């Protein structure tokens, strides 16, 4: 029999106002095993913890029940207190009489009665507790960053600067991400490439950073501190060691009709290509779908002109297997498809473009060399209409329910840049709300209105109608004047909602990281652990967690790096001791448990067992306690009842059920 001490907390008046604490102490003091019971104002305080320590020593307690707030709040506190007093921390149970009792019930009699029952259940459980010892697992001192945009680059740089090896996996042929496609950045209007490319170069040159471009994560196994990851290096058809990046192959390539991903399909590129001039690595990729050699077998011009002999048509995908202690997800975003927004005529007119496409139009290295022109006829536009919230803040399934956060600011930026460079162009912005929380953000927006004369209209556009003369008729509303507006425009720019990169779902599944209904990765805690996934060892960087602009992304990237470094700095991790355990005598080796284990923690061994004097070789289940996360799926599946979960054993839970149903 255990020697149990029960400690009932008043929590000021939080508990004591609706639960008669003295009555609880009295009611449970005769429960089996209880040798000590007392109450105190604040159990979690220094003095409260001292009371517990004192009782453990004086009464030689072997188990503790604290009737207080939720175990999610202070279980760790009381476990540590017990441990300091020489008791195994897993001999502590919490009866949640605040969140589950005093706060939800008004009647003191009813609440006290319930508190007593909850305390009894915890006492019944602690009577069956056994001391548990956490295992240890080693930490591989290497981090993986998935995604090579500004978030991934910054995280990798920060981790590498702390002295740890980092691998970046990027699915496109170059790192740089969305930021490399942008022209200028708000609210300072500095050039995106000018601030990004030095970071890209720094990452590439860093001795601790290893970059896998044109590569994808294929498989992830393991757990915090010890992940094993298969990285698929897709066949580049160019030998990275031999290529000098001279660019002759791209010049001579006869297949130049492939849509350029980097220019959002506005321009074309050759079949052998680097996405943009500053690409890192500066090694081209052969796009086999568009390559004449791969399609017909006849061509091979690139191989002929390559002085370095780097072209390799026979190259195959290569799988690299590497171990990591921490994984940072930085998969970024894309704009949503506008197939469901026919009213804006995006698919009908070349002059209706998304804001990201406008970035490529305005960029000096873009399709039009930075000249603002209509994509249909190359003429200079005179009237440009911007439409905000296209696909953002939608209650239906055409768009996204959230605010994409960056659109108000980049629209103000675009409007301002256009008015600055082409003062004779009229710029109109249809908005629902202008949201500018951020340092110098509202000042920026006001400048667009007051200094640059951008015409902001409160109201939405209902329809964009392409006219026979090539212009666009915009039918909108001015809610403040209560007038419907028909406006002739040459160009319409849609502030298209952003969404997490579609591949993130696949990656989250591999990582067992949770994801919300919008495909954003979920944080471990919305406020207090915003850069960690609930899955240990997985960290979140950038827009994969939620919409954000560049400075926020960089800040989060640094935060994710710090969390990863904190993990990598440890030599060993303590593992949760509440793991499954098989009773060798009862196990019949049927494999049912291994089939339901999501972690592959159960294997089988042939062991000699002594079954009541009969010694025989049997195939029995063995749980790897470092891999087991303690869900308990196996315990229910086991047909012979051999599998049990430590800390939540069958008997413990049944004893709780009994105490409640008494």
């Amino acid at each position, binding site marked *: 029999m255990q020697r149990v001490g029960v400690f009932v907390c008043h929590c000021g008046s939080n508990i004591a106002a609706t639960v008669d604490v003295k009555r609880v102490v009295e009611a449970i003091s005769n429960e089996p095993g209880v040798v000590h019971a007392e109450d105190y104002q604040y159990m979690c305080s220094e003095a409260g913890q001292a009371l517990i320590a004192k009782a453990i020593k004086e009464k030689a307690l072997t188990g503790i029940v604290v009737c207080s707030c939720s175990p999610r709040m202070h279980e760790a506190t009381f476990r540590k207190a017990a441990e300091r007093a020489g008791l195994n921390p897993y001999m502590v149970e919490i009866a949640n009489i605040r969140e589950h009792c005093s706060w939800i019930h008004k009647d003191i009699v009813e609440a006290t009665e319930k508190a007593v029952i909850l305390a009894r259940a915890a006492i019944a459980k602690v009577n069956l507790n056994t001391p548990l010892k956490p295992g240890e697992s080693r930490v591989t001192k290497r981090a993986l960053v998935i995604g090579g945009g500004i978030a991934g680059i910054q995280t990798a740089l920060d981790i590498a600067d702390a002295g740890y090896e980092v691998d970046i996996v990027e699915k496109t042929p170059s790192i740089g991400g969305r930021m490399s496609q942008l022209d200028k950045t708000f609210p300072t209007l500095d050039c995106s490439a000018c601030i990004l490319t030095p970071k890209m170069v720094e990452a590439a040159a860093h001795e601790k950073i290893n970059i896998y471009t044109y590569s994808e994560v294929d498989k992830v196994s393991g757990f915090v501190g010890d992940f094993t990851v298969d990285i698929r290096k897709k066949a580049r058809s160019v030998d990275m060691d031999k290529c000098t990046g001279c660019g002759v192959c791209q010049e001579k390539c006869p297949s130049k009709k492939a849509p350029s991903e980097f220019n959002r399909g506005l321009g074309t590129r050759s079949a052998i290509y680097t996405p943009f001039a500053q690409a890192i690595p500066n090694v081209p990729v052969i796009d086999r779908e568009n390559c004449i050699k791969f399609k017909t077998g006849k061509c091979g011009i690139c191989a002929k002109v390559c002085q370095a002999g780097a072209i390799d048509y026979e190259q195959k995908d290569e799988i690299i297997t590497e171990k990591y202690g921490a994984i940072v997800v930085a998969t970024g975003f894309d704009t949503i498809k506008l197939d469901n927004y026919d009213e804006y005529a995006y698919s009908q007119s070349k002059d209706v473009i998304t804001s990201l496409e406008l970035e490529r139009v305005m960029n000096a290295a873009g399709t039009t060399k930075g000249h603002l022109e209509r994509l249909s006829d190359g003429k200079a536009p005179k009237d440009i209409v911007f439409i905000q919230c296209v696909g953002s803040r*939608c*209650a*239906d399934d*055409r768009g996204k329910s959230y605010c994409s956060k960056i659109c108000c600011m980049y629209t103000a930026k675009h409007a301002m840049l256009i008015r600055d460079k082409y003062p004779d162009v009229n710029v109109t912005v249809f908005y*629902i709300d202008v949201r500018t929380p951020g340092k110098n953000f509202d000042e920026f927006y006001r400048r667009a209105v007051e200094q640059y004369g951008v015409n902001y209209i409160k*109201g939405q556009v*209902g329809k964009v109608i392409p006219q026979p003369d090539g212009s666009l008729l915009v039918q*909108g*509303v001015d809610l403040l004047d209560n007038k419907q*507006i028909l406006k002739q425009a040459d160009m319409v720019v849609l502030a298209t909602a952003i969404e997490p990169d579609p591949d993130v779902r696949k990656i989250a599944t591999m990582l067992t990281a949770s994801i919300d209904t919008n495909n954003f990765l979920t944080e471990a805690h919305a406020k207090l652990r915003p850069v960690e996934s609930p899955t240990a060892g997985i960290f979140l960087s950038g827009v994969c967690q939620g919409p954000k602009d560049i400075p926020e992304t960089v800040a989060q990237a640094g935060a994710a790096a710090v969390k990863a470094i904190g993990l990598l700095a440890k030599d060993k991790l303590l593992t949760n001791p509440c793991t499954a355990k098989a009773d060798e005598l009862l196990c019949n080796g049927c494999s049912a448990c291994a089939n339901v284990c999501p972690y592959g923690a159960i294997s089988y061994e042939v062991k000699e067992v002594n079954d009541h004097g009969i010694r025989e070789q049997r195939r029995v289940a063995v749980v790897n306690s470092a891999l087991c996360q303690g869900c308990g799926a196996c315990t229910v599946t086991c047909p012979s009842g051999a599998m049990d979960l430590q800390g939540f054993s069958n008997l413990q839970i049944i004893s709780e059920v009994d105490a409640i149903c008494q």
Partner: protein
Amino acid sequence: MSSEKNCAQQIKEISGADPLKCMKCGKCSASCPSFNEMDIKPHQFVSYVANGDIEALVNSKSLYKCLSCFACLERCPRDVKPAKLIDAARQLVVRQRGKDYLTADEIPELLDEGLPQQLLVSAFRRYRR
């Protein structure tokens, strides 16, 4: 007519729409082909229902200017269904005896040769019982 609060509730029930979902973007009014004919514009209609100002609605011209083209309903990003709200308000009126917008005798005078028969029938259905 029962109290205005009751009517607002009835309009919400008949239409199955929730005016509180409106984020005041005005896309309904931007899409409306009868906008200029209306005294209470579609986006205002939504906020009148939300605020329970039903008296003004049932007396408004807008009830009979709405073509039920459902452009607002199709394009509304918040799924507020302004056209259904208007339709529901119209029903509230039509359901009362003697509140017909048109009587049968008035019709021939208004007839337009180019008008499709189907439209005529649907107008009858909508404006009188």
